[in-house]
């Protein structure tokens, strides 16, 4: 590489880190926003470094009658062992209501849920109305049947204090994740059992168990490290917070969103120096030195890339060691970070190439990047609502920030590498288009 490329990049880097405004924008604001949530939810409170959010008081009325197909006593040792690994008592496997109860009372949720089982639905409703309990969950009689029997439907009821939002939202999210997992499994079982019936194979409990075991084993076969029956997502946030529980489970997606949002701001702000240097005369002066135009523009781009590299690295490490956020396995995190840096830097180049002068940059920051950024990181705000998150998962992919955000979430959730690579591919496509258009326009402008 031409040394002048590096000289230009390092000069820009030095200038950026001497600017209070740039530093505040790159590091201060994302950390500050995440820090607000950190302290809001009791982080840094001293002895308990974990989650200090006040517990949600949940009463459960379990009316589930169980299912003949999932009799606890008839389970094979392999299936019983599988359930035990997942934290579920094999003795309760005959009732999916009991399984759900076990899940709600599991250690991983003990910090945020205080679960009490009540036999009487009416008194439980009164307890919610009087404010003694935050949320009531009613498991219907045919819940297990609905899970195991094709065509049977059942509804879980959440009864909540309308004045509360966060606690009921957390419960709703947790139960929804559980139901989603069951629904997916049920669909799979229905398809398999339907095909077996068509083939003339008699269906009995042991066959259902065998099929179910196959579904439970499927993730292992696909190479995932995830061997749990149900994966608990963070109560708020779109990421499968396998490594993030409690407070980190809340902060992870927020910090990820802030990092993506502000990386794009930094990319545009850093690329904006092309315009400001042109206006102040230093860029034309650079063109009078014996260096090709390509060298100078490459140096300017490299500076954007390096500034973003520092920003993303600092934010990742700060969040990891101060907020305790788990970003994922090293290789996926490295790929995700590189993808974000690449996309934010090329996007900055692309946007700046359309501006006539630096005064127009306000439109980019205040309008384009803020709007597209909020769309891109919508999942941070809608994750507690499964219905909404389904929509935002799609809509966010209309903007580049959405693709980066998805890769961050996938890495945090330790998603299969294949899934991550698909979205990283999308990030590369966006980057390639941005870089191609941006550099072409800038070269024409300064010819």
């Amino acid at each position, binding site marked *: 590489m031409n040394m*002048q490329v590096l000289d230009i990049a390092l*000069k820009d880097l*030095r200038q950026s880190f001497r600017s209070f405004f740039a530093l505040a924008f790159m590091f201060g604001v994302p950390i500050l926003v995440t820090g607000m949530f950190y302290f809001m939810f009791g982080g840094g409170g001293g002895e308990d470094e974990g989650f200090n959010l006040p517990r949600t008081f949940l009463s459960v009325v379990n009316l589930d009658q169980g299912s003949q197909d999932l009799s606890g006593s008839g389970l094979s040792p392999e299936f019983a062992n599988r359930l035990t690994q997942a934290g579920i008592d094999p003795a309760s496997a005959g009732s999916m209501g009991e399984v759900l109860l076990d899940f709600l009372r599991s250690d991983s949720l003990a910090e945020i849920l205080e679960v009490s089982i009540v036999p009487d639905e009416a008194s439980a409703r009164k307890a919610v109305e009087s404010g003694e309990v935050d949320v009531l969950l009613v498991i219907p009689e045919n819940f297990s049947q609905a899970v195991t029997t094709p065509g049977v439907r059942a509804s879980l009821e959440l009864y909540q204090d309308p004045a509360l939002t966060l606690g009921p939202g957390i419960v709703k999210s947790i139960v929804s994740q559980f139901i989603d997992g069951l629904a997916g499994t049920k669909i799979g079982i229905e398809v398999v059992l339907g095909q077996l019936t068509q083939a003339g194979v008699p269906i009995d409990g042991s066959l259902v168990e065998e099929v179910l075991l196959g579904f439970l084993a499927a993730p292992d076969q696909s190479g995932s490290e995830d061997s749990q029956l149900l994966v608990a997502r963070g109560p708020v946030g779109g990421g499968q917070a396998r490594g993030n529980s409690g407070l980190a489970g809340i902060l992870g997606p927020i910090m990820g969103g802030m990092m993506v949002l502000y990386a794009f701001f930094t990319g545009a702000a850093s690329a904006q120096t092309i315009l400001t240097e042109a206006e102040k005369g230093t860029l034309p*002066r*650079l063109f*009078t030195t*014996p*260096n*090709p135009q390509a060298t100078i523009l490459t140096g300017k781009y490299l500076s954007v890339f390096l500034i973003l590299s520092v920003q993303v690295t600092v934010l990742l490490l700060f969040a990891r060691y101060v907020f305790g956020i788990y970003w994922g396995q090293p290789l996926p995190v490295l790929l995700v970070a590189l993808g974000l840096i690449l996309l934010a830097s090329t996007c900055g180049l692309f946007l700046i190439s359309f501006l006539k002068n630096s005064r127009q940059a306000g439109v980019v920051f205040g309008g384009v990047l803020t709007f597209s950024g909020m769309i891109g990181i919508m999942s941070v705000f809608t994750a507690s609502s499964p219905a909404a998150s389904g929509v935002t998962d799609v809509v966010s992919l209309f903007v580049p920030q959405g693709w980066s955000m998805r890769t961050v979430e996938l890495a945090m959730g330790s998603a299969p590498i294949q899934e991550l690579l698909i979205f990283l591919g999308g990030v590369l496509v966006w980057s390639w288009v941005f870089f191609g258009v941006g550099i072409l326009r800038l070269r024409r402008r300064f010819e």
Partner: protein
Amino acid sequence: MSDESAISARGLYKSFGDIQAVADVSFEVRAGEIFSLLGPNGAGKTTTISILSCLLKPDRGEAWVMGHSVLAESQKAKAQMGVVPQEIALYEDLSARENLVFWGKMYGLRGAALNSRVNEVLEVIGLTERDSGRVGKFSGGMKRRLNIGIALLNRPRLLIMDEPTVGIDPQSRRNILDSVKALNRAGATVLYTTHYMEEAQELSDHIAILDHGKLIAYGSHEELVRIVGELDRMVLTLSAEPDRVVSAWRDISGVRQVDIENGAVHLLVEDSNQALPALIEAAGRAGVRVTSIQIQEPNLEAVFLHLTGRALRD
């Protein structure tokens, strides 16, 4: 082009949309001389030197710098020159030394050679004591000096200076003019653009006068002054609108040219001592009083007035 030529410009044309910035400009700058491009704002001076410093490509025509085509061998041409832009093109959040080190690297200097050259330039521009100060805190004159210093880093054989004295105090202006002469004595060829007639007159071996993108006169100061012969230039201001006396003044014997510029009347006359009483008398007949009189010996201002009918305003 001749071997002694530092710059050779042939038939340069450049337009921006409907505006013809430069039209058929040709001139030659000999190695070792100070050559000035003189003209009012918008005359095409900056466009011309932007072409010569490889910032702009001409629509037509060709130019060579130290024997290298600015189109075909732009990198070689640029390596021979140092450019001082009209605006102060510095990084204000870096120190003077950091600026010089960065620009030195842009010219390919490294290591000890770079440090040594930076120290030399700091000495030349008188900023050794302030080398670690942020440029943003510097006075206008100090910035101008540093702006020039950057162009000296690569020991250029050709120094191109675009109106380096615009907007600075008389003392700094004097320092810059003296620096230009010193650099020229040290062997550098200087292409200097200005709209200050007296700067061109003081510095230049040869002068090209530009107006509306065209080169309208070219030669040494003496050669150019000869264009207007021995005519004196007079500037009179009046107590009333000049229109009332201009036609009468044109009929006075010895008055060769009368133009109105910004309410003042500019005249070229054969002998100002003879013409003055007649001018005052004619004004009196028209009911107008002469409120001030300025008489100048033949100079570049008179040349410009003679050639364009307009004053070369500061």
